C-alpha cells in the first residue's frame, strides 16, 4: 500500500470562492508589463476581501491599460468603452444599479488627454468607483508616443524630449473632490495591495494612480516612468497596513508614529510614519507635498488624501434603495389618475 499525501485543501475566501474565481483570461500584454502586476493585485484584493464577483462591474477605455480588465474577474460583467469615456459609462451603470461595485481601469493617455473632460467630472461627482490609472507616461498600443503625464524633460526611445509639463492626476483629483486619492507603483506589491483593499472599503471616488512601466516603449534611460527610475525615486509617504472589518486584529497605535483611518465598511488603515509625518486628511498638505515632490523629481506614493464624510454622488440623488434597473412597472409607471390629472391641467 503506497501512501499518497492528500492534496492540501484549497484556500477559499469568506464567501467560499477560490482565488481562481477572481482570475481572468491569460494576458496578451508584453511580458514584464506593469499592468500585469496590477491585475495580479486586483485579483488578490477582491479575493481577500471576499467580494462577490457578480457584484462587480469592470470598465475601461481604450489602450493597453484598458485591455487589462479581460485579465481579471472573469465572473464580473466587463465593459470596454470608447477612448477616454469610460467614466460616463460607469456613471450610467451606477445610476442604474447602485448596489454594484465599479472598478474602472484607464491609462494615462485614456485619462489625461482624450478623457480629461470625463475624468474631471467623475472626480467632481465623487461617484462610488475605484478608478485606476495604469500610468506609464506613453501610448503603448500605438507604439510609444508621449502622454500628458510624461514628465518635463523625459526622453522617448527615439530621443525626443518632452517639453511640456505633466498633468498630475492625483493633484487634480484632490482639487476636484475625489475622496480617496493615492499613488502607487506596480512593483510595490505590499503598498498597492493595501491600497486596493482599502479602495474596496471606501465609498466614493477612489483615484489610484499606479506608475506602471511600459517595458517596450518607456523603460529606458531618460524615462521617468521606468522600473529603474521608480527604484531610485519612489518616496513612500508611509508604511500602510490594511485591516479588513471582518478580521479582529488590533492595530498597534503609537502616538506620533501611526495614523489610523477608518473606512466606510469599518475596515481600518494604519499609516506608519516614515521620514516625515503626513496627514492624508489635510487637503492643503497633500497639495504641498505633491508640489514639493514634483520639484525634486521624487515620486510620492501612498495614500495622498482621504475624506470619509462626504456623501457620494448616488446619495445626493436620493434614490430608492432597490436598483433602478430592477424596479418593476408598478414602481416605474405612474397610475392612470396621474395622466388624467395632467391632461386636465393642460386643457
Amino acid at each position, binding site marked *: 500500500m503506497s501512501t499518497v499525501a492528500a492534496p492540501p485543501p484549497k484556500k477559499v475566501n469568506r464567501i467560499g470562492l477560490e482565488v481562481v474565481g477572481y482570475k481572468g483570461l491569460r494576458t496578451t500584454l508584453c511580458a514584464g508589463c506593469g499592468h500585469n502586476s496590477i491585475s495580479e493585485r486586483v485579483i488578490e484584493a477582491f479575493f481577500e476581501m471576499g467580494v462577490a464577483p457578480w457584484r462587480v462591474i469592470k470598465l475601461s477605455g481604450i489602450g493597453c491599460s484598458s485591455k487589462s480588465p479581460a485579465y481579471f474577474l472573469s465572473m464580473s460583467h466587463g465593459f470596454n468603452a470608447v477612448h477616454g469615456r469610460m*467614466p460616463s459609462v460607469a456613471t450610467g451603470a451606477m445610476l442604474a444599479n447602485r448596489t454594484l461595485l465599479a472598478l474602472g481601469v484607464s491609462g494615462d493617455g485614456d485619462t489625461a488627454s482624450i478623457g480629461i473632460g470625463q475624468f474631471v467630472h467623475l472626480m467632481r461627482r465623487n461617484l462610488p468607483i475605484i478608478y485606476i490609472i495604469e500610468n506609464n507616461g506613453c501610448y503603448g498600443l500605438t507604439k510609444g508616443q508621449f502622454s500628458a503625464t510624461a514628465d518635463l524633460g523625459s526622453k522617448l526611445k527615439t530621443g525626443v524630449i518632452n517639453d511640456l509639463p505633466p498633468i498630475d492626476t492625483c493633484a487634480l483629483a484632490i482639487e476636484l473632490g475625489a475622496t480617496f486619492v493615492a499613488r502607487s507603483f506596480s512593483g510595490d506589491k505590499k503598498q498597492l495591495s493595501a491600497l486596493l483593499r482599502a479602495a474596496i472599503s471606501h465609498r466614493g471616488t477612489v483615484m489610484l494612480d499606479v506608475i506602471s512601466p511600459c517595458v517596450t516603449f518607456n523603460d529606458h534611460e531618460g524615462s521617468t516612468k521606468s522600473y529603474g527610475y521608480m527604484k531610485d525615486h519612489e518616496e513612500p509617504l508611509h508604511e500602510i497596513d490594511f485591516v479588513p472589518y471582518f478580521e479582529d486584529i488590533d492595530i498597534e497605535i503609537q502616538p506620533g508614529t501611526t495614523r489610523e483611518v477608518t473606512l466606510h465598511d469599518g475596515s481600518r488603515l494604519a499609516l506608519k510614519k516614515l521620514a516625515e509625518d503626513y496627514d492624508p486628511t489635510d487637503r492643503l498638505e497633500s497639495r504641498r507635498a505633491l508640489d514639493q515632490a514634483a520639484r525634486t523629481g521624487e515620486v510620492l506614493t501612498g495614500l495622498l488624501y482621504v475624506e470619509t464624510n462626504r456623501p457620494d454622488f448616488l446619495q445626493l*440623488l436620493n434614490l430608492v434603495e432597490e436598483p433602478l434597473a430592477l424596479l418593476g412597472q408598478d414602481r416605474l409607471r405612474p397610475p392612470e389618475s396621474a395622466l388624467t390629472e395632467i391632461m386636465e391641467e393642460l386643457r
Partner: protein
Amino acid sequence: MSSVETLPAQGLASPEPPHLVNDFSIQVATVNGSGSQSANIVLLRALFQMGIPVSAKNLFPSNIAGLPTWYTIRANHRGFISRKKEIDVVVAMNPETAEEDVRNLAPGAAVVYDAPLGLNRLRSDLHFYPAPFDKLVTPVCPEAKLRRLVRNMIYDGILAHLLGIEMEEIRKALFKQFKKKVKAAELNWRAVEAGFEYARQNLTKTDPCRVERLNANGNKIIIEGNAAAALGAMFAGVSVVTWYPITPSSSLCETLIDYARRYRIDPQTGKATFAIVQAEDELASIGMALGAGWAGARSMTSTAGPGISLMSEFIGLGYYAEIPTVVFDVQRVGPSTGLPTRTAQSDILSTALLSHGDTKHPLLFPCSPEECFEFTLQAFDLAEELQTPVFVMLDLDLGMNYWMAEPFRYPTAPLKRGKVLSAADLERLGGFARYKDVDGDGVGYRTLPGTEHPLAAYFTRGSGHNERAAYTERPDDYTRNMDRLARKFETIRRMAPAPVLDLRPEARMGVLAVGTTHWALVESRDQLDREYSLPSSYLRLRAFPFHPSVADFIDRHDRVYVVEQNRDGQLLDLLKLDLDPALLPRLRSVRYYGGLPIDARTITDDIVQQEGL
C-alpha cells in the same frame, strides 16, 4: 390619434373676404425678454377656449433679452394649423422691426401698433390701429419697474375688442397662465381691460378679421411636443435620464424633471424612482445613457444636431455592442451652430447612419404631441426589445411650439423589457452566448450586471466579438456578426410604427413626408385639389427603417413628391438607399429650408411648378 389622421373636413363653408371669420393669422412683433410670451399664450388660449382651432409659432432669437421676436397665432375653422405664410393682423411693438414688419404685409392687413411709432405714414392700403401703450399702462400699473412686463397685455385687450374675442375667455386664460400668482394676474388683467376699453372708445373696426365661438376643439389639450415626449418617457418608466442643455431640446428634460418630481417619488420612502443627471457634455450624456441601458435601466438622453454629432462615436458602440437607450433629437437648423432657434428636418440622414463603420439606427418620426407621447412609449420598448439605441426625431417646431392635441391615452400594454436572462434562467440553460441568434430575429439574450450567477458575466466591447462576446479578429466571426445585425434591422422594420396612408383612388400623384411637414402638406393637398384639380395620395412615414408598404405606394403612382425641411433632400436620399432602383425615377423632391416651419403655399407652388401647371 384622431387629430393626427383626420384631415380637415372637405367642402365646409368657407367665408371669403371681406369677412375672415375664424380664419386669419396674427403676428406679434416684440423685443425678447419683454414678457410678451405670457400675453401671446393668453391670446392663443382664449381663442382655443372659444373652440377655434389654433396654432402658434414662436419665432425667437438665440438671445435672452433685447432682440426681435415674432409670435404667430393662426386661427383656422377648418383645422389647418401649419404656419400661414400671409399675415392678416400685425401687432407692432418693436420699434426696431416695426417699419419692416409693416412694409412686408399684404394689402388689407391690420396693424395694431404703439402710437408713437407713427406707422400709419408708411402705407395707405392697411388698416391701422394706433394705441398709446405707455399712457395706458401707467394708471393700471403704478409700480414703474413692472410696467415693461405688463404693457404687452394691453394688446390682448385691444385684439379682444377688434376681433371679438370673449373677454371672459381671456380672463380665464390669463389666470391659468399665472397659476397661483393671483396678484400678478389681477395686475395683468387690468392692463387687458385698459386695452379693451381704449379700443372700444377710440378705434373703429375696418379690417375683415373676426372670431366667432366654434366649439370645434372638443376635449383637446394644448401642449408642446417636448412636454409630450417628456410625459411619454415618464409613463414609459424611464429611470435614468442624462442630458446636456441645448436649444431646442432642453425643455424636454426640464419638463420631465418637473413631472418626475411630482409623480415618481416613492410615497412610502420619499425617494426617487429615477435619476436625472445633467452631464458635462453630450459625449458624457450618451455615455451615461448607454451605461445605464447596459446595466438594465430604461435610459434616455435628449439633444439637438450638435449633440447628435458629438454622440456619433458612442452611438456606434451602442449599435455594435447592442445596448438599449432612447435618444431624442429635437432638430434645429445646421450645419454647425446654424440657427439654434429655427426649425429643420436636417438630421435625418446623419442620424440614420450615425457613426463610423456600417451602422444604421431606428428613427421614429412623430408629427404631433400625441405621437410624441406614443412613440416615446414605443421607443423605450423597441430599444430594450431590440437592444439598440432608438432615436425619436422631433424638430423645434414640434418640440417648442404649442399644439392642440387629443388627451393622451394611458398605456395599457405592459413594458416590454426584452430578452434578459435571470439567474434562474442561467441555471436552467447552463450558460448563454450573448450574441447568438437563438430566435432567428437577430436579437441575442443578455444578462444584467449584478445577476447573482457565476455564468452571468460577459464582456461588452466595441472591438470585434464573437457569439460568446469574446474578442476576435476572425473574418468569419466578424461577417457573421454583422450579418446578424443586418437581420436585426429587418426585425426593426417589422416592429417600428407603420406609415399612415391616405389613398385617393383617382390620384396619379403621391406625396410623402415625415414629422411636422405633415401639417403644411395636408393643407397643400387641399390647395392642389381645390385650386388646381390635382388630387393626391399621401403616405406619411413614421419610422426608419422604412415600412415595406412604401414601395407599394410609390408603385401605385406615376410620381411621388418627397416633401421635407432641409436643403439636400435627406429623406429622399435615405429612401433611395432603401428602395428598388426601378422605383427611383418616380420620386421628386420638394424642399424648404428657411428655418421657419414649412407652409402649405410653398409646397403647393413648388409642386405646381414641377407639374408644369
